[in-house]
């Protein structure tokens, strides 16, 4: 198939440490851009879900930057790795990371949630070639990812399927149907990552519907389980590699994250889940906290829609 990526974490074990460090730096920069772009897009849209975009930015950057065998010129390759954003409301982060890695224009992707723009509030497969399925209804993306993993195995493809779920999403029974099914079918080409930011739409998971002991649940459903700091890029990269090497069972990575990560006034505050309207002042403060320079902030926020 000729799928070969210049440098990926897949090779990192054999590469020297300097290469890995370079990769981590690259992904870190991608994550920073992802957060900035997502904030700007939500600002322009006048609505959207910033909290869960911030918590997942490092995971997405690590996936797109180093783990997925997926890059812009192979989005139609049958043997590409698949990524499904099961927590579809995290769309702004997906669009942003895709923009960073050249799947689309960063400028175009700021037209979030606008009529006529392919960047809908939730990712839609018919709008964007690198979106693998439409999501937004929690639980479904995971099942679709499972179907992909099953289908790829049937077709003897080496491709892997990755999917990112929210923690609140785990309350959907469909998730446990899929979990049981993936284990039963030994789908070791399936890797689920949980953006475990401890918050959902309205409040903390604990207050809404407690998930703990979470790792025990996945173990009892017969998955290989890893727990990581979801903001530690090199730990993420190592864990993805370990998951890829796990035979006979699907893998879940419980990534402990902070909702709103990087934007101090959002961190751990349920109200920033969505659908919120960001003021210009809030957007500027967020971008500054995310390391954007004055001119970058202007570039991001100045009106581009007419």
């Amino acid at each position, binding site marked *: 198939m000729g799928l070969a990526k210049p440098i990926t974490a897949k090779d990192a074990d054999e590469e020297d440490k300097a290469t890995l460090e370079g990769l981590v730096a690259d992904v870190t920069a991608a994550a920073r851009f992802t957060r900035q772009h997502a904030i700007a897009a939500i600002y322009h849209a006048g609505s959207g879900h910033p909290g869960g975009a911030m918590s997942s930015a490092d995971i997405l950057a690590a996936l797109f930057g180093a783990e997925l065998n997926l890059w812009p010129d192979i989005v139609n390759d049958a043997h590409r790795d698949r990524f499904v954003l099961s927590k579809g409301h995290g769309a702004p982060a997906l669009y942003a990371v895709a923009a960073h890695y050249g799947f689309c224009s960063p400028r175009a992707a700021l037209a979030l949630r606008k009529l006529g723009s392919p960047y809908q509030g939730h990712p839609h497969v018919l709008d964007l070639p690198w979106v693998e399925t439409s999501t937004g209804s929690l639980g479904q993306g995971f099942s679709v990812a499972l179907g992909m993993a099953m289908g790829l195995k049937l077709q003897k493809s080496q491709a892997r399927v990755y999917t990112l779920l929210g923690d609140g999403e785990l309350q959907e029974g469909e998730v446990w149907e899929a979990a049981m099914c993936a284990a039963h079918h030994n789908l070791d080409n399936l890797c689920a990552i949980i953006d475990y930011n401890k918050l959902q739409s309205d409040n903390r998971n604990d207050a*809404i519907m407690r998930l703990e002991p979470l790792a025990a649940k996945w173990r009892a459903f017969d998955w290989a389980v890893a727990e990581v700091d979801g903001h530690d890029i090199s730990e993420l990269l190592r864990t993805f590699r370990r998951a890829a090497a796990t035979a006979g069972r699907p893998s879940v990575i419980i990534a402990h994250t902070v909702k709103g990560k990087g934007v*101090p006034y959002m961190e751990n505050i349920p109200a920033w889940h969505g659908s*919120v309207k960001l003021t210009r002042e809030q957007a*500027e403060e967020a971008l500054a906290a995310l390391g954007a320079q004055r001119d970058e902030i202007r570039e991001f926020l100045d009106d581009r829609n007419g």
Partner: protein
Amino acid sequence: MTATAEAPALIGSSGDSLREAFGKALAALAGEFPKLVVLDADIAGGTGVHHFRAAHPDRFLQFGIAEQNMMAAAGGLAAVGLLPVVTTFAVFCLRAVEQARLSLAYTRRNAKIVASHPGLDVGPDGGSAQALEDIAAFRAIPGMTVLSPADPLEMAQATRAMLEFDGPVYMRTGRSPAKRLFDEDHKFEIGKGQIVRKGKDVTLVACGVEVARALEAAEHLAEEKIDARVVNMATIKPIDAGLLARCARETGAIVTAEDHNIFGGLGGAVAEALAASNPVPIEFVGVKDTFGASGEPEELAEHFGISAPFIAEAARRAIARKGKGK
């Protein structure tokens, strides 16, 4: 002062949306209906029931993001004598159709389902979130009453009527700010359509947010000397067949308007009722069997052909077909 100090602005939950009107009415009615309990699947702020929670935290039941369990559990709550109101977005009600069918309707429970965020009115969340199928799905469930009030005042009245009514009810609210259409002497009644504008050339039958658009269309038509009657069909099931028959006789042409797929919803209910009594030309305004998209509700209404000009155009077509058997 930094932005930190400011609370995020919740979108669309203005005091004038149908969901807010519902949420406030529900909270206000709690005293009168001591058995009332409200079920939420982690979107209380979206459905409007945060008002109820604030006033009656002990009667607010959190089910997490698990609509199937919530829907069926309502059957159990009703079975032990409580009056459960299940709340979520319309599209997620579609996830629990079978639960509503078996554990609420087949069992004839006195339980209510209130769905916010129906149709294109959802706006920027996009096509995946815009339920265009819910009226059809719930209308087909035997014994399920289906409501879709049109303005905040009527929503408050319908909330009371729904609680007073004995049996399973599915009611649509709405996300976006809704126009005030009615004044205090308006009176909602389950099963009754209402003529909200007199007219003799054609009848525009609408529900929910489309009533305002139908009234707007009637204004346009008046300029062309077309005298359009407007019916607010806030009860979609059981449909007010008597009123429809009268309108068909008196105006000879019908237009239906709904923020829903053209198949199976209000248009279907009206077509069924009239075919069984007074067949006349009907034109259907609704989303033409496609999914929605992100955008502002008014833009989407325009784009997908359910705004006032489309209703007016449909009226002209319906009138032109009168008496032609075509």
